C-alpha cells in the first residue's frame, strides 16, 4: 500500500523524529527505534465450513522489546495493512513506556472480515495464527490482546492452541481473557479510573480543589462512566454529559448545573449507554444538542467518545473557563486544536497517558497469570492508582522542567526510557 499518500506509519515516524531531535538521540538509536525490530508475515490456511480452503495473511510486528515482552492487540480486519500495524506497534511501545510498565510494543492481525466468517472459521484462523507464531510469542516474548473485531473468545482459542503446542499452561501468553479464565478483575473500571487519577493529579498540579470544579464529558460508555464516578468521589461536579442516541441518530448533551447523578443516569440508560432524552428531562436535566458539550462554562472537559472532536472548527467554542482537558478517547484533539489550546495555556493530559489504565490492567493480568495468583479487585485498583499517579508525575515534572506541553513531555519521557533500555542492553 505504498501508493497511499496518507500513511499512518510515516506519521508515527515523523512524530518520533521530532522527539528524537528534542532528545538529541544518536543516529543508531534513531535507526533502531524508528522501525520495528522484528516483523512476521505469514499465511494461515483454513479449511472453511463448505470444505474449501482459504488462505489468510497473518502478521505480527514487534516494534521493540528492550523493556520487556512486546505487548499489543491482534486485529481482524479485511483491509489491514502493514504500515498501520507498524504505527500501532510503535505507539504501543511508547504507551507501555510512559506508564513505566516493563513491556515493549507490538501489534498484529489477520486480513479477514469476521462478518463473512462463521464462528468455527474464526476459531480456525486463531489457531492457525498461533501455530505459525508459537515460537515467537509467549509470556516472556510477546503478549497479544484483543483489538479490532477480536474479543475474549478469540484470546481463549489462541491460548488453548498455544498451550497445546507447548504442552504446558501459560496463561500469561495472552491478555483480555474473561474473568475466571485467567482474566483480571478491575478491567472494566481500569481505563475510566485511570482517566480520573490523572485528572486528580492535574488538579493538584494546578492547585485546584476538585470540590470547586465542574466538568463536561463527551460520551457515556464504560470509560466515561467510571471516570465520572471517580471524579465525583473527589467531590467534583459533572454538569454535562453528551452521548449518542441511536434511536434519534443524533447526540444530546444532558445538562444539570446542580451536578449529574451518574447512577441515576446509568439507571436510565440502556445497555449501550443510550439515554432517552425524555426520561433524562424528567430527572431535572436540560437536553441540548450534543455538540454543545465543549461549549459549557466548566473547568474540565473530558472527551471520552470519538476522535477529532476538538478540531480547528470547534476549538474556539471552548470556554475560557476550561483549565484542564483529559483525553479519555483516542485522538480527540487534532494538531491544529492542540496548538490553540497550548497557546491558551489549557492543561491537557494526552490520550496515551490518560487512557493507559487499560494497558496497565493488561499488564497486571499478565503478572497474575505468570505467578498463577489472582488479586482482589481492590488490590488491582490500588496498584493501578499507584502506577497512573507515578506516570503522571514523571510526565508533569518533565513538562514543567523543560517547558514542554504535556503531550510532548509524555512522548519525550516514553521514548527516552526505551532509548536508555536499548543502549543499556548494548544494542546500539
Amino acid at each position, binding site marked *: *500500500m505504498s*501508493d*497511499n*499518500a*496518507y500513511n*499512518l506509519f510515516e*506519521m508515527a515516524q515523523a512524530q518520533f523524529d521530532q522527539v528524537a531531535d528534542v532528545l538529541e538521540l544518536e543516529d543508531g538509536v534513531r535507526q533502531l527505534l524508528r522501525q520495528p525490530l522484528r516483523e512476521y508475515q505469514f499465511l494461515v490456511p483454513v479449511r472453511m*465450513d463448505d470444505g474449501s480452503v482459504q488462505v489468510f495473511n497473518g502478521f505480527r510486528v514487534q516494534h521493540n522489546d528492550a523493556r520487556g515482552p512486546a505487548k499489543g492487540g491482534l*486485529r481482524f*480486519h*479485511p*483491509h*489491514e*495493512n502493514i504500515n*498501520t500495524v507498524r504505527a500501532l506497534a510503535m505507539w504501543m511501545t511508547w504507551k507501555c513506556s510512559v506508564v513505566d510498565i516493563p513491556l515493549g510494543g507490538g501489534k498484529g492481525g489477520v486480513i479477514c*472480515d*469476521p*462478518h*463473512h*466468517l*462463521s*464462528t*468455527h*472459521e474464526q476459531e480456525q484462523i486463531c489457531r492457525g495464527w498461533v501455530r505459525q507464531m508459537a515460537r515467537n510469542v509467549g509470556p516472556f516474548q510477546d503478549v497479544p490482546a*484483543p483489538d*479490532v*473485531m477480536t*474479543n*475474549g*473468545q478469540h484470546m481463549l482459542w489462541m491460548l488453548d492452541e498455544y498451550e497445546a503446542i507447548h504442552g504446558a499452561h501459560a496463561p500469561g501468553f495472552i491478555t*483480555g*481473557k*474473561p*474473568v475466571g*479464565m485467567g*482474566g483480571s478483575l478491575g*478491567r*472494566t473500571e481500569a481505563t475510566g479510573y485511570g482517566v480520573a487519577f490523572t485528572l486528580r493529579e492535574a488538579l493538584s498540579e494546578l492547585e485546584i480543589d476538585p470540590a470547586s470544579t465542574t466538568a463536561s464529558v463527551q460520551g457515556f460508555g464504560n470509560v466515561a462512566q467510571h471516570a465520572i464516578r471517580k471524579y465525583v468521589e473527589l467531590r467534583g461536579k459533572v454538569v454535562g454529559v453528551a452521548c449518542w442516541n*441511536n*434511536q434519534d*441518530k*443524533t447526540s444530546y448533551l444532558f445538562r444539570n448545573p446542580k451536578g449529574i447523578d451518574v447512577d441515576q443516569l446509568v439507571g436510565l440508560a*440502556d*445497555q*449501550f449507554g443510550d439515554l432517552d432524552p425524555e426520561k433524562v428531562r424528567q430527572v431535572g436535566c436540560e437536553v441540548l444538542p450534543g455538540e454543545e458539550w465543549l461549549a459549557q462554562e466548566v473547568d474540565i472537559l473530558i472527551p471520552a467518545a470519538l476522535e*477529532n472532536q476538538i*478540531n480547528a472548527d470547534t476549538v474556539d467554542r471552548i470556554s475560557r473557563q476550561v483549565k484542564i482537558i483529559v483525553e479519555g478517547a483516542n485522538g480527540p484533539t*487534532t494538531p491544529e486544536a492542540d496548538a490553540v489550546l497550548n497557546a491558551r495555556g489549557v492543561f491537557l493530559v494526552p490520550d496515551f497517558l490518560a487512557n493507559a489504565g487499560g494497558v496497565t490492567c493488561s499488564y497486571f493480568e499478565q503478572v497474575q497469570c505468570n505467578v498463577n495468583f489472582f488479586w482482589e479487585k481492590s488490590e488491582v485498583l490500588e496498584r493501578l492508582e499507584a502506577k497512573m499517579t507515578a506516570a503522571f508525575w514523571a510526565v508533569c515534572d518533565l513538562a514543567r522542567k523543560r517547558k514542554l506541553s504535556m503531550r510532548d513531555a509524555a512522548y519525550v519521557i516514553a521514548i527516552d526510557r526505551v532509548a536508555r533500555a536499548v543502549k543499556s542492553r548494548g544494542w546500539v
Partner: protein
Amino acid sequence: MTPRSHPESASLDSVLEALRERAKELDCLYRVEELLGQHDRPLPELLQEVVRLLPSGWQFPKKCQARIAIDAATYDSAPYLPPACGHAADIIMEGAVIGSVAVSYVQEVPLRGEDCFLEKEHKLIQTVAERISQTLQHRKLRQMRDEWELARKELDNPSSREWMVIVDLIRRTDPLMLNYISRQMLHRLSRIGVAEARNLVRSIDRIGEEDFLEESNSPIQAQDMEKILAVSEAVFKLAAQHLSADDILVSVQKWVQDKRASFLIKAVDNATTTLEDIIEAVALYKAMEDRQVRLSPSAEQWLKVSLIQRFFSDDLEYVGTAKENVEVMDFHGLVQRIIFPAGSGGNLGGKSAGLFLAQSILAHSDEPELEHVKFPKTWYLPVDALTVFLHVNELESINEQKYKDIDQVRLEYPDIVHLLKCSWFPDDIEKGLSAALDDFGDVPLIVRSSSLLEDRVGASFAGKYKSLFLANRGSKEERLRTLLEAIAEVYASLFGPDPIEYRAVCGLQDFNEKMAIMIQEVVGQRVGDYFFPLYSGVAFSNNEFRWSPRIKRKDGLVRMVPGLGTRAVDRVNDDYSVLVSPGAPNLRVNVTPDEVCRYAPKKMDVINLETGRFETIGIDEFLKNHGAQIPVASQIVSACCEGGLLAPAGIHTDFARDHAVVTFEGLIQKTPFIKGIQTILKRLQAKIGRPVDIEFASDGTHLYLLQCRSQSLTDYDASSAIPTDVPDERIIFTAKRFVSNAPIPEITHIVYVDPKGYAGLPRRGQLLDVARAVGMLNRLLPKRQFILMGPGRWGSRGDIKLGVPITYSDIHNTAMLIEIARRKGNHIPELSFGTHFFQDLVESSIHYLPLYPDDDGIHFNREFLRQSPNLLPDLLPAFASLAEVIRVIDVPQSAQGRILKILLNADEVSALGFLARPSGKTEKSAPPLERPIENAPSKDHWRWRLRMAEQIAARLNPVRFGVKALYLFGSTSNASARPNSDINLLVHFAGTDPQRADLTAWLQGWSHSLAEINYLRTGHAADELLDVQWITDDDVALQRGYAAKISAVTDPARPLPLNGKDE
C-alpha cells in the same frame, strides 16, 4: 455314386438302400412324434408343420405331397397337385372317421410290383394317422378337464356371480345407474376391440364414430337412454364373454362409486348449493374414504377443484397449484371450523387460501424436519358473513364509503368503527362463535382479516386491514362480547381511509372487495402476566438483504424476534430483529459482542393477560424479573459477561445479575429450528413454484406456521424488468454481482465520492472532512431522493483510506448506498456490504449495491459523474476545497430534466442505473413498507402547506416578535411534500427572550392546528406539523448552520412576505 457293376456290391447297395429308406421313415416318424408332443401349441399350427414334414419320410420326397384333412380344415405340404398315385389313412376319434392323412406322388415313380409305395411306407402313414388321432383325443380330454376346473374355480369365486347380482339389482332399482354402467361397459368393450360392441355402439348412436372424427359442425345427437337400456343385457353378455368376472366386478363397482361421488361434485360445483350441503358432502366423502372407497382420479380432481374454487379462489394459478397439493380430505378439517350465515357461499379470502395451501403441502410431505411443524387452530367466517351482518343491521349504505372524498372517509371512520361495534350479529353467527370459543378454551386469540384482495398478485394489502389480539379472559359472556366487537372492528377497517385510498391508487376502487375473518389461537406461553410466543418472525425463500458475498440469494432470510411477530413483520424504527440466512446460518450479520448487543431486540410485543391488552414491553426489565421462568430461555438469550464474551445462557444464568441479550444463538446452533425453516421454505417453494414468505411462531415445543404467501407479492421483493434498449450515453452504471430486489425511488441527486480523488487526499483530516461533508449533505438533500456512491467500505474505521468513515447518522436519508470496487493491479478490494450498520439499513429500507466497474461488460459512466456541474461548493462552501473528491450532481439539471432510475433484478442478477424521464406517477417514489400511500407525493400535499406557510407569514407581526425574516424550505418549498412531511420554517430572529417564547407559543398553536388538518387529509397523525429552526444575525453573516440554506443552490430557503413587510 458308387457304380453298380459288381454283383457283390450290387447286393450291398440294395441293403444300404433299404437301410437308408428305413432311417428316413424312422426319422420322419420321430419328428412327427416330437411335434405332436408339443401340447401347448395350437393344433392347426402343429398339423401344418407335420404335413410339411411327411414327404421327407417317403422314398421320393421331391415328387411327394401330403395332405391332412380334419373336419373342414385341410393342411397341405405344398400347393396341392393332381396325384399320379397315392395312399391314405383315416383319422379316427371315438370310433368315427373325422379326417385323413394322404400322401401321393405327383409324377410317375418306379413301381415295386404294382405298388408305388414301399411296405414300410403304408405302415408309416397308418402310424402318423393314429398318432394324430391320439393327439386329438388327448387334446379334447385336456380341454374338458380345464373347463371343468375353471368352472369349479368360478363356483368357488363369488365375483363370478356377484357382478351379475349387482347388475341385476341395479337393473331393477336404478335405471339411471344402469344406463351409466351399461354405457361405460359398452365403451370399454369397444375400446378393447370387441366387434360386436362397436356394432352396438353404432346401432345406438344415430351417428357413427366416423362422424366424430370428421368434426362435423352439426351437433351430436344425445343418445337415447331407452336404447342403451334395451341393449344393456346384450352388453353384459358380451362382457361376460370377453372379460373376466373379476374385471367386470371391479369396473362396475368403480363406476357405481364415481356416479355416487358425482353428487359431491354436483353439490360443490353448483353455485347455489348451500354451505351446509357442501359440508355434508365433504362429510360423506370422508365416510367413503373411511370405507376405503376411492374415486377415479379424474373425479377426485374435479371434486378438489370445485372445493378449492368454492372456498378460496378462481385464480387459475392458485387452483392449478392447489389441486396438485391438496387432498379432498384436507377440506374435512377445514369445514368443521367455518361459521357461516344461512345461504353462505363459503369464500374464505386470500389469507386463508395461502395458509390452507401451505398446510396441505406440508401435511403431505414426509421430511423429518417437518414433523414438529404445526398450524394454529383457526375458525373462519366467510366473506358473506359481513354482507349478512351489514344487512341485518341495515348498514348496506356503508359500502358507498369508497366513493366518498378521502377526508370525509377519514372523518367518518371513527363513527363507522363505533357503529359496527354497536351492531348485532345474526344468531347463527353468534352461536357459531360461541361454539368456537368453547373449542378454543381460554387461549388468547387473534382476529385477522382475510380479504379477497389480500395476497393477490400485484397489490400488497399486507397490513392494510386490522388484526386484533384478544386476551380471551373472563366469563364466557365477556369473551364472546369482546370477540364480536373485535370482529366488528376488523370489519370496519374495510371502510377505513387507508385501504380505500390505497385501492384508489392501485385502480381497484371498483373491485368488489370482501372480507372474511380468521380467528386463530395465539401460540405461546404465559410468563408473569404476559402471554407471548417465545419467538416468532418471518422467513423468505429469497434473501434480498445479503450482508456477505458468501450468502446466496436462495439461502433465504429469517427475521425473528421474541414475543409476538408484529415486530418482525413490520420494520420498527426503534428496534432490531435477529437476522439469519438459513442456507448460511453461521455467517451472521453481527460478529463482535458489541454489535451483537447493539443490534439485539430491545422490546417485545405481548398480550397482557391481566389487562387484556396488547403491549410492548422492554426486554431488559422483563428478563430481569421473569427470565428464569421463560421456558427454553437458553435458546433465546445469551449472557453478556465482563470479557465481552457471549455464550448461550444455560441454567446458570442469573437473570437478576447477568446482562442477558436476545440472540437466539442457542436456537440457531443447538436445535433443528433453522433446518426446519429451510425445509419449509424449500418445500413450499418447490410445490408452489414461486419463492414464498411465511410467518411463524413457537411456543417453545412446536413451530407454528401462521401465514404463507408468494414472496414476489410484496412490493419489496419484486424484480424490475431491465430494459435492454437504453442508449449507452444514458446509462450511469450497470451491475452483475450481488444484486438483490428492491424498488428504488426516482433519484434526483447523486453524491459521488470519486475513488481516485479520495485515495489521493494526503491528510487524514481531509479524509475525515469528506465524511463530515457527506453527513451534512445527508441532511441537506431531499430524503430518499439521493444516492451515495463511494469507494470501498462506507463507514471504515481505523484505516479510513479504504472508505469514507461515516456513521449511520451521516447517511440515513439516502435512498441507496453504493460501494465502488476498483481494481488495483490484480486485486479487487473487498467491500463492506454495509456490515458496519447493516441492520440499520435493513430497518430503514436503505438498499445496498456494490459496483465493480472494471468487470467485463459493465458500464460505469465516470464522465457523467466527473463532468456534471458540482453543487458542492454552493451547498457547503466550507468544503469547497473537496470539490474534486465529492461531486454533488443535480440529475435533472445535468440531464435535461431526466432523473436517475435504478432498476434491480435479482433473478437475472442485473442492475441498471440510467437517465430517464420522471414517471410523474406516484408509484414507487418512496420506499415501500413505509406505507406507500402516505408517502405518495401529490400536488395537494405541498400546495396547501405552502398556502398555510404564506398565511403564517402574512399574520406574523415582525415587530411584536422580533423577527427579521421568515423562510420556507424543504419539501413544501420544493413541492415534494408527502402526507407525513413537516413544514420547514426558518426564523431569522433578532428579538428578546420573552419575544422568542411568545413566538414559540404562537407558532405552536399553528403547528397543532395544521397537524390536525393534515390528519384529516391524510390520516397521518402527528402532534405538530411545523419544524421551526432559529437563526441569528451572526449565523446569517457566517452562513452558519441553517443559515446556509438561505442562499443554497439546491432547495434554497425561500423568503415569505411578513405581515406589513414586503420582501
